[in-house]
């Protein structure tokens, strides 16, 4: 039950920060290439405008998000995840997936050997007769 692959540093600290994680997760849920207005993003993240700008700047500098000023009557900023940002988010979730099983499983969930038993039973049910 050693933890060979996960070092503390493996959880990208840029994404692990709870507020930045919220931003990245929200943007990652958009269809690829889609952008969100900063105001809409704020509705989801619950951050203050200033707080959000600070985090976006950090993610922008890392190349994880792209912010653009959209035209129109009112200068509006749109935010999108870049390819790098999406890849970083994928890496982050795969590191989380390496957590020991007990951390992710619902305790009510059947243990793997129970599932084997189910398969046996199903096989028996489908057997001769």
């Amino acid at each position, binding site marked *: *039950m050693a*933890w060979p692959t996960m070092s503390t540093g493996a959880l990208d600290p840029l994404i692990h920060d709870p507020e930045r994680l919220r931003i990245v997760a929200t943007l990652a849920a958009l269809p690829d290439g889609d952008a969100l207005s900063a105001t809409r993003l704020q509705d989801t993240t619950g951050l203050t405008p200033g707080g959000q700008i600070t985090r976006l700047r950090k993610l922008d500098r890392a190349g994880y998000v792209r912010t653009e000023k959209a035209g129109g009557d009112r200068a509006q900023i749109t935010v999108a995840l870049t390819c790098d940002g999406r890849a970083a988010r994928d890496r982050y*979730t795969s590191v989380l997936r390496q957590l*020991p099983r007990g*951390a*992710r499983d619902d305790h009510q969930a059947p243990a793997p050997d129970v599932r084997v038993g189910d398969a046996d039973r199903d096989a028996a049910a489908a057997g001769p007769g």
Partner: protein
Amino acid sequence: MTDELDPLIHVPTRLKIVATLAALPDGDSLSFTRLQDMLGLTPGNLIIQLRKLEEAGYLSSEKTRNGSAQKTTVALTRQGRKALDAYTQALRDLLGGL
């Protein structure tokens, strides 16, 4: 907006400790040295993180004396397990399943 990510668990080192202890069968504990080996932490760092988690009631530690050697074992409490469940659920909500 999803639930808050429990800051006590969110720190990577503590997340590793809690997740490792949660993977043990219910009621099992792990010795301090074994936990240290598994996570590759310095004794000092591990002690600090364990103390924080114990103060929050997330884990319990027990000292046993065997002759001159003292052994400390740690285990996740029911409250700690609950907190980790809530934490993983919040992460799942955020990241769309893990």
